């Protein structure tokens, strides 16, 4: 996955826009100064790949919108800043809101950063749409009733779905269980969700190893050795950064895959790096809200995947869908709010009211924001197969579930929902 070296902005100019087939929505052009959207995405380190994929999708969505007259006739401009650690990213948020005076902020991938950004954006009354990064206890604690911040689906959705699939297809086939989850908020919450669901559905199990590799660590030989010693029947791992392919290589070399079943709820971020020669078939594999090779994908998804391959000779992961949804939701909300007010550009409060409960056609199909500002999209997971068309593992049968069935309804805590909420395997 060779990326062009020129700065990302130049790439946009070069790539240009696929012929604008059908303009999304065309309303009376009200014209006016360009609409500025601030994008906060990681461009280095472990999450660099993911941030880039999201940015490319956002740019595609922007160019499509601009080609058909922008939003209410105003051309959209991006101000792109780098998401790094919480302290510096809040500094960039300040710059976007106070100096660049952007109309909306979209982005954020890491859960740690989102927990810090949420309260900061609320305080600054900055309309912010998160791509990713909101975990369970984080949101309950930091953004109980957000007004200006719209959160992604709960980060545990993929873990819940993977757990449900494991229970549905492998109940009775595993006794001992091991966890290898990245050592940060996201990893800890996913592992907790998996164990809670096993308890909820009365699956008798014993935890034989609980490992916490450092995020982005490059040497996992000790972790693989520990797993081999523990001899688990099932390994649940929400690893999702560059350390995942390394773990797979070293686990394959150690012969772990012959005896043990694996569930990877978030492997989608690294799907092109999980080559067939070290990724076995029959593993539970999560693609989150975008599976690029979904047989009956929407025309929109097909057009995007084709554009992505033509422009970058690569296949997108789910971050693209998250970025597209944030942009599409904002665009649709602004246009809807304008219609109610007779065509003039709506103010922030009006946009927010329209965003609450909005439903748009995103890359992964129907996607909407609930009244409590939590996103609700469609999740894709399945069992890996080797397909001659690709040198990396893709999905055999694909299970599709809406986030409604995978995350707590508004007003309920995560623990109550898992213990006695309505969940079907």
């Amino acid at each position, binding site marked *: 996955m060779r990326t062009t070296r020129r700065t990302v902005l130049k790439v946009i100019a070069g790539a240009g826009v696929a012929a604008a087939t059908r303009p999304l929505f065309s309303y009376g052009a009200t014209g006016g100064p360009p609409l500025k959207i601030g994008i906060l995405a990681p461009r280095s380190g472990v999450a660099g790949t993911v941030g880039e994929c999201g940015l490319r999708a956002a740019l595609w969505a922007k160019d499509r919108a601009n080609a058909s007259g922008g939003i209410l006739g105003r051309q959209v401009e991006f101000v792109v800043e780098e998401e790094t650690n919480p302290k510096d990213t809040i500094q960039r948020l300040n710059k976007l809101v106070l100096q660049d005076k952007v109309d909306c902020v979209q982005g954020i991938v890491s859960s740690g950063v989102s927990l810090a950004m949420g309260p900061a954006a609320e305080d600054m009354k900055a309309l912010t749409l998160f791509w990713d990064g909101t975990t369970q206890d984080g949101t309950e604690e930091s953004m109980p009733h957000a007004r200006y911040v719209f959160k992604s689906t709960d980060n545990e959705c993929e873990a819940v779905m993977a757990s449900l699939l494991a229970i549905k297809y492998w109940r009775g086939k595993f006794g001992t269980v091991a966890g290898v989850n990245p050592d940060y908020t996201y990893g800890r919450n996913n592992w907790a969700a998996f164990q809670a669901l096993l308890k909820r559905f009365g699956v008798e199990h014993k935890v034989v190893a609980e490992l916490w590799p450092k995020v982005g660590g490059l040497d996992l030989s000790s*972790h693989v050795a520990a797993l081999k010693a523990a001899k688990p029947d099932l390994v649940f791992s929400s690893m999702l950064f560059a350390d995942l392919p390394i773990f797979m290589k070293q686990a394959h070399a150690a012969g772990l895959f012959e005896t043990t079943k694996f569930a990877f709820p978030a492997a989608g971020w690294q799907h092109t790096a999980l080559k067939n020669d070290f990724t076995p078939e029959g593993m539970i594999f999560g693609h989150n809200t975008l599976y690029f090779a979904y047989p009956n994908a929407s025309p929109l998804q097909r057009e995007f995947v084709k554009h992505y391959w033509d422009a970058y000779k690569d296949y997108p992961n789910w971050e693209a869908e998250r970025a597209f949804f944030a942009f599409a939701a904002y665009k649709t909300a602004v246009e809807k709010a304008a219609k109610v007010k007779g065509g003039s550009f709506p103010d922030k409060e009006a946009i927010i009211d329209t965003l609450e409960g909005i439903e748009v056609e995103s890359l992964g199909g129907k996607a909407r924001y609930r009244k409590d500002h939590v996103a609700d999209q469609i999740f894709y997971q399945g069992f890996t197969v080797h397909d001659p068309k690709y040198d990396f593992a893709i999905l055999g049968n694909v299970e599709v579930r809406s986030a409604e069935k995978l995350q707590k309804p508004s007003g309920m805590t995560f623990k109550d929902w898992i213990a006695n909420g309505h969940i079907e395997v």
Partner: protein
Amino acid sequence: MRTGTSRSERLDPFSLVISFLDILLGGVFHAAVLFLVAAGLQLVFGVQKIINLACGSFYALGAYTGISAVTWALAHGLPRGLFLFALIGAGLGLAVVGPPVEALLRTVYRRDEAFQLLLTFALVLIIEDVLRMIWGANPQELGNLYMHYGTVGKGALTVPAYNLLVIAAALLVAVGLGLFLKRTRFGRLLRATAEDRETSATLGVEVGRVYTVVFTLGTVLGTLGGALVVPTAAASLDMSVDLVVEAFAVVVIGGLGSIRGAVVGALAVGLMRAFAVSFMPEMEMLSIYLVVIAVLILRPAGLFGKAAA
């Protein structure tokens, strides 16, 4: 070690010994990786009394160049089995980086250690962005190429042959470096300069040239190490900053300036991490810093270093 109950054979001593050996081997592999990073740092400090914070950056440079060299070589018809030589070529080729960097450091030899330390800190910042410019922000890796050499052993104790090769390379470097310093004329020259820069200069030792060679050798140890290890892992921008801390722990435990100390330090850190991961996951990195602090307090010179404070 928490043993499961439902599978009977897990309790018998044979499999306990096997998994112990397996963890041990994982630890030794990690120790080999650490030694390759620390050896360069140790050599440069031993002779020039400079702590090179950029040792991790040279290692990362070796890793990235290694990947490009292999990709290029395979594309130009090099048989898959010979990818190792492309790696070694890349690692050694980067010796070219040594002299210019040493020339830069030379401008501050006379001054306080703080200046040398900060100059290498500047190199960390510079090299990270140079890597970003050339290879982009995303981690690069060579897929499963290293499995081309297959695995060794059977059953629970199977290990990739390439891992053993890395361990062997580290041993080779350790022994080679030891012999070089003790046996060869230039080696003795280095140790003399290390002992006392002024008197060596008065005895006609061309100190400038010695420093250039030593720093370049230290650089090559880093870049070669990076290239050799990359097939089993990946090259990412953060490795240059993360590795510094572990290499630093190895050098402190082993004793500043002593190659033998680096070997022992690497084994200590490697094994500690391997067993901590299996038994006390929470304490993994914490345990290493505690040992570093304990060593710095009880034996400031480290296990093999010369008196320092």
